[in-house]
């Protein structure tokens, strides 16, 4: 009897747990689901008061990739991917370099340098957009993808603290042993520390990879109407301008779904590392 009661209690509690999770998942996925439904809708209205499309179609996706005269999505996608890959590689390297230095090497004014970096990242960025634009212009880099890579990577170092926290947790004895074997600091960095840093590398890669896909302010200012150099964020937002939205809204939704796919895949592939990376980083601040 009591066994049965306990069993019942277990079952009920289990059920409640899963019910709660299911309800929450529905709430969280609702806008995403709606996005997907919209991307499969034939009716072009940007705003509908019903949920299920009256007619389903894949035409929006087809148009996105074939009807490129006005909105060259494939090109923007490739631009963004290019920028994302390069800025991700460069910023990851920069972040790792700077965090390793701050964690492992000792030099004058290190603490000051860390504090300065910390607060620099807190300045509201777009106030300085005009200045950034003109500095890029001085280097002939406006309206180029290179310019975007430079911008996205140059500020990366400001997010050093998580990676630095991670390096703090790698035992110093490893370095010391290597030094005794005659390895230089350079060798230690590349041969010993980096191979051990998979979690934190994953973490920084994700963070820096996302930025170009979602930035719709800087990219717009830097590209100045040169639409064949746009990124998806700029281009897609242009699709929902007053004069275009009535025609292109569902296509916009399809575009967003396509943009989200690489990010979801990246998340899923790296979920384990991502979680571990953040944790280890936070331990030491």
């Amino acid at each position, binding site marked *: 009897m009591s066994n049965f009661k306990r069993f019942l209690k277990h079952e009920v509690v289990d059920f409640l747990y899963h019910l709660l*999770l299911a309800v929450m998942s529905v709430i*969280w996925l609702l806008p995403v689901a709606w996005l997907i439904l919209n991307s499969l809708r034939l009716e072009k209205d940007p705003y509908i008061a019903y949920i299920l499309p009256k007619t389903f179609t894949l035409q929006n996706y087809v148009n996105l990739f074939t009807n490129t005269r006005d909105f060259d999505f494939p090109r923007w996608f490739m631009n963004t991917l290019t920028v994302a890959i390069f800025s991700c590689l460069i910023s990851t390297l920069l972040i790792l370099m700077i965090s390793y230095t701050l964690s492992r090497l000792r030099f004058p004014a290190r603490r000051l340098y860390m504090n300065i970096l910390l607060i620099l990242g807190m300045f509201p960025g777009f*106030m300085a957009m005009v200045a950034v634009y003109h*500095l890029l212009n001085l280097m002939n880099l406006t309206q180029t993808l290179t310019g975007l890579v430079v*911008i996205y990577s*140059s500020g990366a170092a400001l997010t050093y603290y998580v990676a630095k926290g991670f390096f703090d947790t790698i035992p110093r004895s490893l370095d010391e042993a290597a030094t005794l074997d005659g390895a230089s600091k350079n060798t230690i960095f590349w041969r010993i520390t980096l191979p051990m840093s998979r979690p934190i590398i994953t973490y920084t890669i994700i963070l820096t990879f996302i930025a170009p896909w979602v930035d719709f302010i800087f990219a717009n200012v830097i590209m100045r109407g040169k639409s064949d150099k746009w990124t998806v964020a700029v281009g897609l937002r242009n699709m929902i301008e007053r004069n275009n939205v009535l025609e292109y809204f569902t296509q916009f939704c399809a575009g967003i779904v396509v943009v989200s796919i690489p990010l979801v895949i990246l998340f899923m592939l790296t979920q384990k590392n991502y*979680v571990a990376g953040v944790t280890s980083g936070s331990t030491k601040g």
Partner: protein
Amino acid sequence: MKHSLEKHGLKEPAFREFVGAMTKGDVFTRLGFLIMGAGCAARGQIAKGLLLLAAQASYIYFMFSFGVVYLSDFATLGTVEQTTVWDEAVQINRVVPGDNSMMILLFSLLTIFISLIFLYVYFTSVRVGYQALKRHRAGAAMPTFIDDLKSLWNDKYHFVLLTLPTLGLLAFTVLPIIFMVAMAFTNLDRNHQPPGNLFTWVGFENFKEIFFSHPLKSRTFYRVLGWTLTWAVTATATCYIGGVALAILINNKRVQLKNMWRTFFVITIAVPQFASLLFIRQLLNDNGTLNIVLQNLGMITEPIKFLSTHARITVLVVNFWIGVPYTMLITTGILMNIPEDLFESARIDGAGPITIFRRITLPYLFFVTAPFLITQFVGNINNFNVIFLLTNGEPRTLDYFQAGKTDLLITWLYRQTVDEQNFNMAASIGIMIFIIVSVFSLITFNIVASGKKEEEFQ
């Protein structure tokens, strides 16, 4: 370290070394004051000497071709107005461009920046020349260029690693920030827009106006600041609690398919906010799906005005929706990583699950996530996306100067630049945000860093 000066007892404080170069140096060291690298070259460090000379040459070239042009107008930010001249032949009023105050300000700052760096190189070059002389006099071995390069790869490896990131920061973060700070001291408002108008320095006028003298603007500033802080505290706390609770829920042993649940929540992160917030906006409209569903269920008769009357609550709830998955992701890892022996010793002491949670799980979580919490708080103060994309600060009110009830300082600032072109005012607001968040985070970060509690958990 084989060329260390210390070994020969020649180490001196930097400034004394600089003075020493003048008072005790030989003719070449002294020549180094005029021609950079002379001191080095004379002692046989030819490559180093040539590099320094090249640096000097390029600086001089830079100053004459670029720096002086702008720097000379720095005090006034330009004096020549744009004018027109009638061109009879083609019947147009030819525009004769005048000074552009914006360019003068920016490029003067750039020049000052580069000059400071150059001064440092100059100072160093004199010292290095004198060091070479000291070595020469002491009969010590002179490091070759190769030696120098090698030392970079080891003793001074931090230069190799820091140079590139620091250059990037200096050029694209520090200089623009200083430019912005400078704008706060000018009269660059909508009536002084270049290229047709000059703007100039006005001291603390803008700050005075925003903080005291302009009733509407200062009232707006304090009220928006108040809401910004309320928002930041509430948003950070709710997302944190919600995220931790969700992580604990998913981590519960009885929950099946943990990865699936996590993925569900993570997907929301992958959708760019400019799209997901657009959908939430549609959902919450007066005529939005949520209102229609509620009306059809008979729960309400009039639509709930999520985006106007109740906008402040709405933005907090939506931010909860956005923030919880992030916190969940991060705390999940921490929960899985709590050292098992912590629990064990507690259990031996006879602690129940609730006590364990309160005494061990929570403090541990709180400790390891403190930096995350601080950055979240700062991030929320500057949370542009959620407000801009969801409500754009609305509902506006006549109590405020071009701002609305849900406006944060950052969105107000954005509107002041892009729509209203009051760059000076926006810059002053920006500086205030910066002071608030930097003081806050410097204090809290250093408290967290110096709290030597790590041992408790390791």
